[in-house]
């Protein structure tokens, strides 16, 4: 039974670090941090998202592919060649690690959408073509799965403990201004690399600890807008909700968070009129996007980071600052291992997002 065919709830560890001025660090601190929470995962999934790792291809979409076989990769390859100008295609460098067994075929493609494809299909936003390509590869090309599809970023994930995954992908060789990490404790045995976190679409990545009790309606809501939730993971829901609400509906990020974890009516009723009207409308219109149930999530995109807890904080998440760095982790111990003792540490409040944005002057 492959994940994507069954839905697997899981407990987890999450961790993240970001430099607001774009200073890049290698993968060692984030690995240290997530490894510290070893017991929060069970060896059935670990992964990392790294931003700023491909400055030489900054204008190209970096497709990280997981393929069950070389044949599946060739199918995906043909599809990509048809729709994109492929500037470079290569296996992602890995090293042999005793704990990581039976890895799939792992490649990366640096691509740009073909102009004629956009024109012929009347697609205004090239990101729509990329999104569609990701959906098509995941759903229509058997054995191929897109790990990530953003610019100047990439996801590295698989089955194993996160610290072993980090060694496997040689993450110490990459430099990023933002790292997120995930260790997974699925309550089942998936053994499928695509099921690990982070989950990515375009430059949006999500690591997630929790189970969304409202999954059924969140899924049906997203399907109404053309999303296909084939993986059946909660994390996929988070990523698509951000894509829909922020990119397509243009809601500012703080409001997106308020849709996912809205204030209670008793608090909305106490707000001053304009605010009350705004929040009432938000809950009326986006009730089906409310993510109910326990979660702590870290959502990252090329210019920032969001930490969010469910509306009654049923999962842990702590935040910290150290100089220009912002730190997030499931546990304070893991947070302290990132870059040494931080200047400030606090628990993220229920439903109250931590939103960090790169400083304006920094080009990322």
């Amino acid at each position, binding site marked *: 039974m492959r994940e994507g065919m*069954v839905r697997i709830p899981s407990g987890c560890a999450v961790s993240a670090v970001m430099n607001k001025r774009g200073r890049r660090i290698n993968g060692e601190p984030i690995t240290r941090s997530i490894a510290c929470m070893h017991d929060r995962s069970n060896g059935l999934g670990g992964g990392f998202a790294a931003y700023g790792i491909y400055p030489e291809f900054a204008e190209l979409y970096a497709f990280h592919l997981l393929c069950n076989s070389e044949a599946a990769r060739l199918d995906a390859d043909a599809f990509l060649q048809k729709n994109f100008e492929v500037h470079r295609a290569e296996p992602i460098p890995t090293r042999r690690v005793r704990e990581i067994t039976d890895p799939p075929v792992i490649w990366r493609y640096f691509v740009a959408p073909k102009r004629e494809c956009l024109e012929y299909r009347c697609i205004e936003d090239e990101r729509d073509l990329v999104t569609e390509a990701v959906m098509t590869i995941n759903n229509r090309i058997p054995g191929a799965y897109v790990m990530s599809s953003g610019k100047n970023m990439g996801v590295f994930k698989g089955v194993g403990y996160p610290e072993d995954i980090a060694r496997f992908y040689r993450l110490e060789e990459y430099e990023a201004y933002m790292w997120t990490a995930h260790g997974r404790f699925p309550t089942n045995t998936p053994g499928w690399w695509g099921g690990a976190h982070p989950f990515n679409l375009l430059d949006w990545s999500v690591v997630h600890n929790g189970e969304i*009790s409202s999954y059924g*309606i969140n899924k049906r809501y997203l399907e109404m807008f053309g999303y296909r939730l084939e993986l059946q993971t909660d994390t996929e829901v988070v990523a698509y909700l951000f894509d829909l609400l922020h990119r397509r509906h243009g809601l500012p990020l703080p409001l997106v968070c308020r849709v996912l974890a809205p204030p209670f009516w008793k608090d909305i009723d106490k707000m001053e009129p*304009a605010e009350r*009207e705004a929040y*009432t409308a938000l*809950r009326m*219109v986006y009730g089906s996007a409310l993510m109910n149930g326990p979660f702590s999530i870290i959502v990252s995109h090329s210019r920032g980071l969001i930490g969010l807890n469910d509306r009654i904080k049923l999962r842990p998440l702590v935040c910290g600052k150290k100089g220009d760095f912002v730190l997030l982790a499931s546990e304070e111990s893991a947070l302290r291992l990132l870059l040494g003792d931080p200047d400030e540490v606090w628990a993220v409040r229920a439903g109250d997002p931590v939103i960090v944005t790169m400083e304006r002057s920094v080009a990322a």
Partner: protein
Amino acid sequence: MRSIIPPDFVIRIDHNKCRRCGTCVRGCGFGALSFARSLWDRSLAIFKGQEDMQKVYSRLEGYIPDHVVGDNTRCVQCHYCVTHCPEGAINIEPNPLAYKASHHWLPEYMRNVWLQAETGGVILTGSGNDKAYFSYFDHMVLDACQVTNPSIDPLREPMELRTYLGSKPDALEFDRFPDGRLRLKTRLAPQLRLDTPIVFAAMSYGAISLNAQKALAMAAKEAGTLMNTGEGGLHKDLYPYADHVIVQVASGRFGVNAEYLERAAAVEIKIGQGAKPGIGGHLPGEKVTEDVSQTRMIPVGTDALSPAPHHDIYSIEDLAQLIYAIKEATAYTKPVSVKIAAVHNVAAIASGIARAGADIIYIDGFRGGTGASPLIIRDHVGIPIEVALAAVDERLRQEGIRNRVSIIAAGGIRHSGDVAKAIALGADAVAVGTAALVAMGCHVCQKCYTGNCSWGIATQRPELVERLDPEKAAERLVNLLRGWSLELKEILGALGTNAVESLRGNRERLRGVGLNEQDLRILGVKPAGVGIGG
């Protein structure tokens, strides 16, 4: 001609317990109980001239008081007498009279043939379809959390049932204040706020008494929900409750005028009713009293006939015109609802209604009640609300227009479990008619159309109406809504959620037990035993 139809029930009176107080005799709206005075007198007359016997009886006179006898042929099993007898001396039993056993010719079918052989008419009935059709509600179960995600305790955490009915846009736009705060830019269509996702179903003044309507209005106000006038107009006594009233515009246009539209929270165009899809209404002249005549704007004592179709709606574009005529008349300040009966093509019809501009679609399933309907229509036309609701919700989602309308599901909701299941299938709210009447005392005897309701609910006879104290009845209704709301909160908490919108349309939290594949597919529900996402 004397009827050959045997009575359905047998009235048993324990004469040892009976104190001859007369409560039951006065109480029965159907005149099924009386003192046996006349029988005694007749006995004396028979024995007149027989000196010996007369001597015996005249000596007994004064010692044997009158006793209560029941006329079984008039009894409808409404239990008013049973409930109110201070001695507990009355019981109503099914007539044990045996028929030659048959799985096909059940006694009720023979009874109906006899009735029509005697009268040549259409058999009328009240309440909802009582036939043993398969119940989808009874073959679906809800989920609960264990270990991997925690359930939430409604006694300790907020648990939200607030619901807004009305058309919603797909997306919202915001402006930024100079100080950085956000202000809503999108202008929303009018919305109805409900504190619990349960409204009272449409029941007209005429079909039910003014006291019953008052009770519903008071309860709706108290509980933060809505009552619905049905098609009988709005009595002046209900004007203070205007913010909690949906007024109906039906094919008879009874009581519809500018003030009527004004004094309402929303306006509903009634196309059909679950108990009698495709046919009109008939309020017998006996129920059209002075007051009803005023409210309906028709002469006293005339039959109030609602035509089967609206005579200005022969297609969907005509409906759109009426919707917008009402919106114009109310300056776009009130949501317009369209009520339809659940029929085979309900999904496509609902889609048309949404596109015609309705804010709310009210779907009434075949178990829905009525004040009067031909029995044959009530029991054999229309489809169950569960499948109709599932089909409509899914269709509107496939077309990407689910946000445009709210769905009220009605027709057979008996308890908060049904409410939760209907919401999980996709309803924004449910409407309860029969359950509300039962809360007020109704025993579902199905004789609403006779106007003799002993409980003072489905009658206009003043001596019966006055029995129903609107305030006490309202209190019972509020209690019912409170009880159901508390249960809904328990269900939400067990599901690990704390807002009703997380249950709405969340069929993932429903499972079918004993449903076949086709049913499961239509309901969009997985069979029990299959895990999440399986």
